[in-house]
């Protein structure tokens, strides 16, 4: 990146009135329900609300602020995977463990993203206003002892399938959903695949050749030295 571009971006940082105005508009409507907000200038707006305001927010956004287009509804599991990056095959790890080379246990502290978060699971959704081209990402914390969110179907009927996916993949119940069946997987499937502690069985038993990609490429040193020579 050249220096000129950096300067331009810094200018953009100072003047993102459009998104700040939008945020102010939403804050006026929602008031105390907003826990935290985050504006990335020139990019996007993140708003974290309380779970109780999940449906109210949808209503406000759709009916009062004209965000009529439902982009998606989904969730994030913020607990880091107990399997680490899961890039190394467990077979290989076991072998190296036998040689006394025990890898560090993965860091299990929960770090959340933009607009913060207090719990392991967080549902998030994105809605667009097609007339003005604005969009906003809504987040809400889901406490571990009560994994459920109210449904958005009465507001955005398109949330139906997104919420079924959410239930199936994360095991977060959606209260008031008319058809809480599995969307993708066969009925006998057990587990919630998108949870970080769901193990991919094939990775437990097979070595993964793709791991070499992140190691130093053969001949890399040669290339650099030839560059230095020329």
């Amino acid at each position, binding site marked *: 990146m050249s220096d000129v571009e950096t300067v331009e971006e810094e200018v953009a940082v100072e003047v993102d009135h459009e998104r700040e105005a939008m945020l102010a508009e939403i804050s006026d409507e929602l008031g105390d329900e907003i826990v935290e907000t985050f504006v990335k200038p020139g990019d996007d707006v993140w708003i974290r609300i309380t779970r109780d305001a999940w449906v109210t927010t949808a209503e406000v956004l759709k009916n009062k602020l004209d965000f009529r287009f439902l982009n998606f509804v989904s969730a994030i599991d913020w607990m880091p995977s107990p399997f680490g990056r899961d890039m190394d095959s467990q077979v290989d790890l076991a072998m190296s463990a036998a040689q006394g080379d025990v890898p560090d246990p993965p860091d299990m502290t929960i770090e959340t993203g933009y607009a913060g978060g207090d719990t392991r699971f967080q549902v998030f959704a994105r809605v667009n206003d097609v007339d003005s081209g604005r969009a906003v990402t809504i987040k809400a914390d889901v406490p571990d002892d009560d994994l459920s969110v109210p449904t958005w179907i009465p507001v955005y009927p398109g949330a139906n399938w997104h919420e079924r996916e959410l239930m199936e993949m994360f095991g977060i119940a959606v209260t008031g959903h008319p058809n809480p069946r599995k969307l*993708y*997987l*066969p009925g006998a*499937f057990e*587990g919630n*695949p998108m949870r970080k502690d*769901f193990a*991919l*069985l*094939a*990775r437990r038993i*097979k070595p*993964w050749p793709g791991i070499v990609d992140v190691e130093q490429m053969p001949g890399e040193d040669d290339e650099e030295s030839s560059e230095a020579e020329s």
Partner: protein
Amino acid sequence: MGLVESGKLPKPLTGLLNMSRKYSLWVYQWGLACCALEMGAAFASPRYDVMRLGVIPFPASPRQADLVVVSGTVTDKMAPAIRRLYEQMPEPKYVISMGSCANCGGPYWDSYSVTKGVDQIIPVDVYVPGCPPRPEALLEGIVMLQERILNEDMTARWTEEPIVVGA
């Protein structure tokens, strides 16, 4: 069927029957994923035009098919349906497994919902590797299958090793 499977036919008649099977392979298009498009290109594109070889892509019902091309990712949810549709086909029937996913799971080798290879469910006659294979590769697989059909001995049909294109 008993006629053909008993294997006691005079040689010229067997040859004739084999030849008619060779040139009249009605193929059921089992387009599952990406490879379905390359299969479509091989079957419907004027550039490849599989009908030249006598492979007729008409049937929409497995009952009228001789050959099935399983092209694409087989998921655990789809697998029972594949088994069932294979069983609905009348003998003698042939299976071409097209693409890495149908062969062995391909790039989804570690997925929680993908069946790693259609040969776990149904017997496969020809494997066409690639992700996705070019239409030419599928045509080669079909030509190799036709050669095998021409020299086929019905009684030995289930004991032969499958063809692997390019191997």
